[in-house]
């Protein structure tokens, strides 16, 4: 009886430890490229790319089914970062560099319906029913999803105003 218990325990322990060890050493990572790309995305799952969220977009970019310019919210900066990561040359066709954008509500035509608020993936729009709505600059990713839902066309995307803090020199030209 005792011998049986001991031998089974010993067997269980050895196999368990062995399994644990191999699980760690020979672990197959989830596609790390996809997760790295997903980390670079805005992560708001706004859906403006036409795919099911940032994870799906990352997968599609890694698989090469969509171009690096897929994400409107990330803009040219993200497209460049993705291209650098994938080691591909970037065609910026159909994507002008407008820099970071934010949504802005035109107060004179906002009717306070609140449709935009429901659309916003980051809760960047504030306001109450029948009141003028406003956009919090820090929270807006500039995806433009709210624009489509506004029945009066009161929402436009504007470039984020440049301040002394984030102004930067342009890259100087080298010898041709």
């Amino acid at each position, binding site marked *: 009886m005792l011998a049986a218990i001991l031998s089974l325990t010993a067997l269980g322990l050895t196999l368990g430890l062995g399994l644990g060890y191999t699980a760690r050493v020979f672990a197959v990572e989830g596609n790390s490229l996809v997760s790295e790309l997903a980390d*670079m*995305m*805005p*992560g*708001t*799952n706004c859906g403006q790319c036409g795919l099911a969220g940032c994870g799906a977009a990352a997968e599609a970019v890694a698989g090469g089914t969509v171009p690096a310019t897929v994400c409107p919210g990330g803009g040219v*900066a993200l497209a*460049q*970062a993705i291209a*650098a990561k994938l080691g591909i040359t970037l065609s910026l066709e159909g994507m002008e560099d407008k820099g*970071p954008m934010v949504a802005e509500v035109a107060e004179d035509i906002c009717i306070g319906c609140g449709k935009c608020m429901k659309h916003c*993936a*980051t*809760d*960047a729009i504030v306001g109450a029913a029948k009141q003028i709505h406003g956009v919090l600059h*820090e*929270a807006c*990713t500039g995806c433009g999803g709210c624009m489509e839902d506004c029945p009066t066309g009161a929402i436009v995307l504007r470039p984020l105003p*440049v*301040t*002394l803090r*984030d*102004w*930067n*020199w*342009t*890259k*100087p*030209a*080298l*010898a041709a």
Partner: protein
Amino acid sequence: MGLLELLNGARWGVHPHDDHKRPAADVPLRVMPLPKRLCVPLLQHVGAPAKPCVAVGERVLRGELIARAQGNVSAPVHAPSSGIVTAIGEVTAPHPSGLPFAAITIELDGKDEGLPTAESVDPFGLEPAEVSQRIADAGIVGLGGATFPSAPKAQLGRKLAVQTLVINGGECEPYLSSDDSIMRERAGEVIDGVRILMHATGAAEALVGIEDNKPEAIVAMRKAAEPFAAIKVRPVPARYPMGSDRQLVQVLTGKEVPSGARTASIGVLVNNVSTCAAIHRAVRTGEPLYRRIVTVNGGAVAQPGNVFVPIGTLIEDLLAFVGLKETPARLVMGGPMMGAALPHAQVPTVKGCGGILALTAAEITVADPSPCIRCGSCVKACPMGLVPLEMVARIHAGDYEGADKLAIDDCLACGCCAYVCPSHIPLVQSFSHAKGEIWKRAQQKKRNEFTKGLAQARTERLEREARERAEAAAKRKAARAAQTAAATGSQETSA
């Protein structure tokens, strides 16, 4: 050059053959007549901008507080002369971008009425904390150009029990001589400021480093420092960028500041000579920092020299005072190596402005860049031991991370590398761009994390709401079912 340095063969920096300091440096100090209007900026220092405490239409007197410091690292702003506040709003910043920043505009009445003069005090009878407080109240910031508020710096020195003060009289930038001028003409004030600072920080000795191309300043400072054994005036070789904190500390004390650390971490605190003079006036007589010496120089200036200027003076007024021989091709605030090109002349002077240059086209011509010949001159010239040719290659390949790994963060933007490059490669310009880009990316990453958090919170909220709605619906349904059951039950019993 020290013996050790000779043996090591270390030789950073550059030695411009003509430093353009004279004749401007030899002209006696002039005081600028009051202009009609001053625009006194709220952010003239590192840290949080000051908050206005006067209203439009109010009359202010010379030395009156017009904006309070906000937070630990900040500095108050004072009215440089008497007049009426006509606007609190945006003016063009003295910055190459031409972007606006906040300022208080004062129409001067020309009477220059001051606050009643405070009694002069003996700083050595005050507690060190009180001395720091007086420095803070006077809005003193580092006048060498770094503009870090002086009071928190002194407090840091005290906390870390710093034993050595290094007083920076390097002024290595070509064309500039405002520090030279204050040492020549007001050595007594500078030395007294040094003593006050030693008292405030508890430092045991002070080393005043002055480049050996300023013999008059060295003589004057030696004479003023004679009675004080703890203050030693040390001539240092004239070599750009000797006026950089790290380089001066290394030459004077032989200690090297580690990468990414401050000088305080090796027990040294650096202050500029003009800052010391301002500290003397602030602590002894309560005079806040509302004027400073500015070198006006450059080929386009008719009468170059050093001028005592109220802070907030528009550059156009200052240039009108010294006169122009021709239309300048470029206006620069600061020196030609590290200064900021100005968008136009309607920008105000600030506390950190030690020089205004009006340069002619001949003075600013740069040849077109040609490819790198890998001569290594830039590596030899870099005072921070960086590898400019590698960094620039990475940056232009779009590999900012690679540049970051090469410690681009340590780059002082001194411009030595670009100065010596025989191929005229815009090295320092590329580094400034890359530093901005790296900062922007870090900022974007933070923003992404923030918005990701917001999106997650929203998803959770929507799920919770859906769940609650489902539960409420289920409850209602159950209640309705119970009601119907009860109704049928009673029907059955009544039947």
